[in-house]
């Protein structure tokens, strides 16, 4: 058999996670940016710019979870079990910000500030704990047989919490550059001024994580810092710097296409994420369990693969179409509601 089904599913899950991070990233980022924007109308524009698409964005997270469940049941059982607390907090965050989309508009005026806070707090909570989850996956899980044997609070480490903070900044940058594309002054101007700061903060965070990870995990260090790997991997930090310079320039000046900062930020996030993938491959439950150990029987992988290869292109087409329908600037008063 020429195709390794487990590897294909690993890539599909990585793809779904990446789609999730970039797509829900900017709409969670909008919630994180709420404290920087006080004006009610600007906030409406922010929410309306993602209202038609957030559901679809969040579905990638469900796909990631479901595909992990179906393709790597052992990994699903161990990772989700080990991360029960941060994942539950993430879900609670997603509940609050998810319902806030509709509730902000349906609430009585007295309730509205509460749902604004729920949107903001929920987005922040969900993002922070997603970052913690990412950190915990890099850090690995102790497993014996087919059971997670660590404690319920193993995830509570400085490194994981720092990853949480890092993701908050990453999503805020995605949100800010998205709004440069989708809004007009004064909101756009505000975001243009915010973007370079967020970019700087993100670069600092990325640098710290890039140093901290190999220091903490010798296996990851040897993957990156041995020949010949280092020659193949060296372009990653180079491209990160290049992307950052371009974001800096395009965000600060009106003369570039308004979509550029956002597109470049997507590139930046993609690079950061691929660095993560390089670090953990081919372990699906780092540090010991490989994706082949955790995979479902080939009958499941094969059956799912038929569906995935056939349906995901359609999903991409109509998702893109939906974005296309709602292209252009969101103006105040144009409320979709």
């Amino acid at each position: 058999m020429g195709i390794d089904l487990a590897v294909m599913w690993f890539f599909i899950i990585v793809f779904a996670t990446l789609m999730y991070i970039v797509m829900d990233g900017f709409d969670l980022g909008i919630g994180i940016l709420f404290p920087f924007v006080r004006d009610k109308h600007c906030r409406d524009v922010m929410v309306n710019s993602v209202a038609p698409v957030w559901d679809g964005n969040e579905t990638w997270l469900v796909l990631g979870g479901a595909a992990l469940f179906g393709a790597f049941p052992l990994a699903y059982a161990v990772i989700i079990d080990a991360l029960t607390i941060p994942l539950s907090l993430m879900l609670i965050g997603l509940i609050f910000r998810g319902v806030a989309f509709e509730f902000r508009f349906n609430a009585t005026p007295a309730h509205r500030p509460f749902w604004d806070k729920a949107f903001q707090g929920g987005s922040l909570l969900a993002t922070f704990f997603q970052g913690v989850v990412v950190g915990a996956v890099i850090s690995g899980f102790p497993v014996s047989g087919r059971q997670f044997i660590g404690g319920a609070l193993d995830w509570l480490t400085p490194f994981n919490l720092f990853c949480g903070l890092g993701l908050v900044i990453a999503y805020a940058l995605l949100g800010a550059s998205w709004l440069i594309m989708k809004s007009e002054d004064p909101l756009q101007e505000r975001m243009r001024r915010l973007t370079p700061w967020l970019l700087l903060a993100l670069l600092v965070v990325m640098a710290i994580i890039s140093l901290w990870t190999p220091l903490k995990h010798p296996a990851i260090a040897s993957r990156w810092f041995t020949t010949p790997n280092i020659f193949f991997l060296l372009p990653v930090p180079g491209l990160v710097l290049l992307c950052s310079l371009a974001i800096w320039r395009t965000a600060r000046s009106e003369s570039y296409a308004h979509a550029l900062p956002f597109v470049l930020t997507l590139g930046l996030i993609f690079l950061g994420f691929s660095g993560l993938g390089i670090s953990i491959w081919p372990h699906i439950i780092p540090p010991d369990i490989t994706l082949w150990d955790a995979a479902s029987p080939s009958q499941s992988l094969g059956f799912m693969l038929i569906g995935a290869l056939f349906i995901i292109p359609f999903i991409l087409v109509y998702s893109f179409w939906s974005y296309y329908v709602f292209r252009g600037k969101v103006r105040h008063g144009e409320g979709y509601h």
Partner: protein
Amino acid sequence: MFGLDAFHLARIQFAFTVSFHIIFPAITIGLASYLAVLEGLWLKRKNPVYRSLYQFWSKIFAANFGMGVVSGLVMAYQFGTNWSGFSQFAGSITGTLLTYEVLTAFFLEAGFLGVMLFGWNRVGPGLHFFATCMVALGTIFSTFWILASNSWMQTPQGFSIHNGQVVPEDWFAVIFNPSFPYRLLHMSIAAFLSTAFFVGASAAWHLLRGNHSQTVRTMFSMSLWMAVIVTPIQAVVGDMHGLNTLKYQPAKIAAIEGHWENKPGEPTPLLLFGLPDMEQERTRFAIGIPALGSLILTHSLDKQVPALKSFAKEDRPPSAIVFWSFRMMAGLGMLMMLLGVISLWLRYRDKLYTSRPFLRFALCMGPSGLIAILAGWVTTEVGRQPWVVYNLMRTRDAVSAHSDLQMSISLGVFFLVYISVFGVGYSYMMRLIKKGPPPPEQFALDNADKPHSGLISSAKEPR
């Protein structure tokens, strides 16, 4: 917490979160198809009443859908957080079917929902109708996969077991397992019916308050036709589902009937009342109709229904719960049928919209479909116990090894969040319903080619 161990707390958490969740999809499934019908009628007949009803119900649909998405997200992760034993045992089947649900249903719904809710001014009416239909189709696909998954847990087939893991051998057999067709039909119809009763009650509320607009009347009339035609179909499907359960899960039927032992030559009665007692192995205070149980379940007057005592003690589902949940569901079904029959009579007498006792009855029946769905699911899920996958894995072996303290906190937090968020959400939905449909005149157009242009004015109104 309250002397319960982590295992029972995990079960309560699952029951609680899934019960809260199912209410939203049930309404979503029904409303999506209702909206597709309304928009189709509007395009065909150009009657603005349908467009006004669409506008009205799509807002309620949006609020309901959002709550369904976030409460469903919790479900997708709860298998892993609390039921890791089950996940690694049966993930090869349950996870695969869930993946198909995400791919074919969730993306379809979410992808077209934006256009459906916010796209009136951005796409033509044909394309908009297409988006509504895709959302409705997504809800049907979703029902298909999740019920295939649940039915496989009830009546598993098409698999083998290697190294403590289920290996699917024949996907057709896995998906179209014996109980699936009946459960799919029974639940889909239940979702349509509960929506019809929900819509009907909303109309009844407005009629009782003196709002006799054509929109409200149309809404009332449509939902009552659903009640008249679909309730009897549901009764027949339910009967077939029961016979299927008798064949494949006889212990569940015995528990539902509170039926402990068969005496030679005596047909099984139908108990109308009773308090099944698992310890004493009998049903106390039983009041029954002789032979009716045999008649309903075996369609004969002499065959016997299996009795609980013929199953090992540790394999018996808790009869005290399913005995009553089943009777609640069946009783509500009969009330629904009664409402349908009365509506036919009143329609004939031309008093459908004016008979206040009837309007009050319809109002009270608003939540009946949803309560019946909950009661039905309690019956089928509790009736599967002590198994999580019938005859393959016991629920006790499926649970994650969390501490009692952690499960208590987690249950407490989810309880608070659900009650507050979804409680408030329901109150907002009620507020939207009380506002009533917008006057259809604003959708009456001089230019029939551009039916969506009428909305521009309304879209700019502040909410």
